């Protein structure tokens, strides 16, 4: 079981709040949008997070100014 952050790219405007909260998993691309640090981090619209990031991810979901995030628990991996 791992946590996956689902990003609605049509909403996200790259304000960078989630990048700050999930610095271990996310970094900013040149235009300010969240980008997975892990090479295989982006899986069809979601970002796979490290196990201990669930709490921070929940906070990011709650505080994202564009309501662009959701947290999913997935079985794969």
């Amino acid at each position, binding site marked *: 079981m791992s946590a996956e952050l689902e990003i609605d790219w049509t909403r996200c405007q*790259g304000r*960078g*709040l989630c990048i*700050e909260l999930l610095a271990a998993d996310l970094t900013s691309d*040149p*235009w*300010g949008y969240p980008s997975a640090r892990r090479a295989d981090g982006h899986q069809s619209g979601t970002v796979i997070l490290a196990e201990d990031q669930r709490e921070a991810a929940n*906070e990011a979901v709650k505080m994202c100014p564009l309501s662009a995030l959701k947290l999913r628990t997935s079985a794969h991996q």
Partner: protein
Amino acid sequence: MDELMWSVARTSGMISLLLLTGTLLVGIMARSGRAFGGLSRYTQSLLHRSFSLLCVIFVMLHVLSLLADSYAKMQIIDIFVPFLGDYRPFWQGLGTVSFLLMIAIALTGLLRRHLGQRVFRGIHLTAYLMWPIAVAHGLGTGTDAGTLWYRIVTVISIGLVLAAAIWRLTANYLDHSATRRLAREGVKL
């Protein structure tokens, strides 16, 4: 009793105005997507939310104390319908307008995940209208409006908000606006 209520009303009104200005300034900061020194974007968001909710609490206190104060002759209906009051109805009415707007802004802010971005943005942007109305209300009806320190605080607030609003409208306001502009100009055949 009236004396006490009167001073609670004045003090809470004053604090509301400071908090409101703070909320607006931090809102504009947060919207830029930039971290300011020690203030991360996350902290800014938390501050923005806390300031605004505190502001709502102080405005409530402000209104309730005026209701309890017989000198102000305020009725419950004056809280919800502007310009009906007996005491300086126009200036008091501005207070009602800004109060209603503030409740709407704060509520839709808290419920934004359920309302959708468009409703939230539409209502939230009226904050730029609400702030000057609230300031005008304070200047027009406030007992302390004539005092020097009230004027100084108001002038500084107006200055800060004007500066922030102007910054808000400049091309480099958003973080990464330079790289984004560069990218957008990428294809221009």
